[in-house]
């Protein structure tokens, strides 16, 4: 699958930055290479040209700089956080709450690039 701008998930940049920051320890040098930027962009299916890749490299390394500063803080004995808020997940009762799915599907598919017989159509994918 070739990287295509604007195709893919709802949160590319979440994915890109989220996973980068989370996997900081993977980058021992605390500094990225241009090649790594291209690889991450490819994994996130974002097309970046050389100019953009260099700019992104600078920005990402800037973030690493900030984190390096933060790493000076002594976190011995502090439990890692999985979320910025110290709260628990609220749960929903196991009930079906959707009705009139025919109308909803029609509304969703009206804005889909292609749909037929209730299916969303995408470029053929088969192993």
């Amino acid at each position, binding site marked *: 699958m070739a990287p295509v701008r604007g195709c893919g998930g709802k949160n590319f940049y979440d994915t890109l930055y989220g996973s980068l920051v989370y996997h900081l320890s993977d980058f021992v040098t605390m500094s990225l290479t241009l090649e790594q930027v291209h690889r991450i962009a490819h994994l996130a299916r974002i097309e970046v040209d050389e100019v953009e890749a260099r700019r992104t490299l600078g920005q990402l390394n800037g973030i690493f700089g900030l984190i390096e500063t933060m790493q000076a803080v002594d976190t011995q004995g502090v439990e890692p956080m999985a979320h910025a808020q110290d709260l628990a997940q609220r*749960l*929903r009762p196991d009930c079906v709450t959707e009705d009139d799915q025919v109308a909803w599907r029609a509304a969703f598919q009206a804005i889909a690039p292609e749909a037929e017989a209730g299916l969303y159509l995408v470029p053929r994918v088969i192993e």
Partner: protein
Amino acid sequence: MKQWEVVIGIETHVQLSTRAKIFSGSSTAFGAAPNLQANAVDIALPGVLPVLNKGAVECAIRFGLAIGGEVAAKSVFARKNYFYPDLPKGYQISQYELPVVCGGSLSIQVGETEKTIALTRAHLEEDAGKSLHEGLGPAAQGRSGIDLNRAGTPLLEIVTEPDMRSAAEAVAYARALHALVRWIGICDGNMQEGSFRCDANVSVRAAGESRLGTRREIKNLNSFRFLQQAIDYEVRWQIATIEDGGSIEQATVLFDPASGETRAMRSKEDAHDYRYFPDPDLLPLVIDRQWVEQVRAELPELPAARRQRLINEHGLSAYDARIVTTSLDLANYYEATVAAAGRENAKTCANWVMVDLAARLNREDREIGQSPISATQLGGLIARIADGTISTSMARKVFDELCSGGDAASADEIIARQGLQQITDSDALTALIDELLAANPGMVAEFRSGKEKAFNALVGQVMKATRGQANPQRVGELLRQKLG
């Protein structure tokens, strides 16, 4: 020739039987028209947020308790990032570093040997949608169709340690797990509909070697037979490859039921770089002890405990106890049969359930829940064998009649209506025996000269004359008195 050891670990995707999806209020019912159970959350429109279904968490707790694992007080949802059209968000919400269940084990039986398979973990995640490549209309040339009804269906992924050493053990494990998830009511177990799918990680190593060989993962096996066939083929292929001087490369393979072979999927570059990270849309899942204890109190008696009780209280052998606890429905049926027949006839009940009834169900391709004879009817029949009213062979006829769904409500009714009671009356039998002995002097002489066979033939004659209604034991006794 070199001895090889096979090492297998299994990951199973168990579809949880909740009404709604794991992060949305869409229905999980199977078989709806395409995309009629896919709401804004399931198709990942911008701005939507997941809210976790309490029912799915409860299923995970039930499972954790049933396998003696640890239900995590705090677990975390993570994003598993990859791109595929049936995954509309571009990531699957799963659990990674902190799963909801850790550890636990499951006992399996292969032949006479019992073995414990250690479980690594079980985590909650969402299923993806389905891609269709065939049967699309002319407007869909060169296209794949995407149905997102399944997207967001709750799954529990259950992962074992590499503890299995043969395809037979792998199948025994899969069967035991399948029985357990149905037993505790967290999965309907419907393998045709994909409710229970196994991935097998298979490697081989020289016997005595302690390091693991390189594994290949066989994906998406949705029947026990395919699991067996796929592992058998994969093991032969790996051994042949190594013996021919090759080496195994880590890969994901698919099993083709038509050819019976496994083949590597086109290697997807970076396919395994999922860049997991905690999902910022979901807070940590906190499960307090009180909730766990409440779920524990609602769990049915588990298979292992039930087996032990049947061994202790009903005097069943370990083997019989295992067979009648294959499913919760079967165990309940067996116990209801015993309740009707009397505890002292438990072993006979087990035999009828495991042999006669099982054969009948098998022939008619039915589950125990659709048994043509109720447990009360079967128990009533067994009580009549036990008290000598009818012989076992007569009982088989009554059994068939009850199964065939006639208007008779009970064994007693059929026995009375057709006059099937055994003749145990000594006077009537004695008269009959006297007649027979007079008519068969040859056999009598043979018996007197020491041929035990002749004795059995005489018993047979009496049974024949009474059309099977004589009590064979009583006939034997009377004959010995006469001849002795």
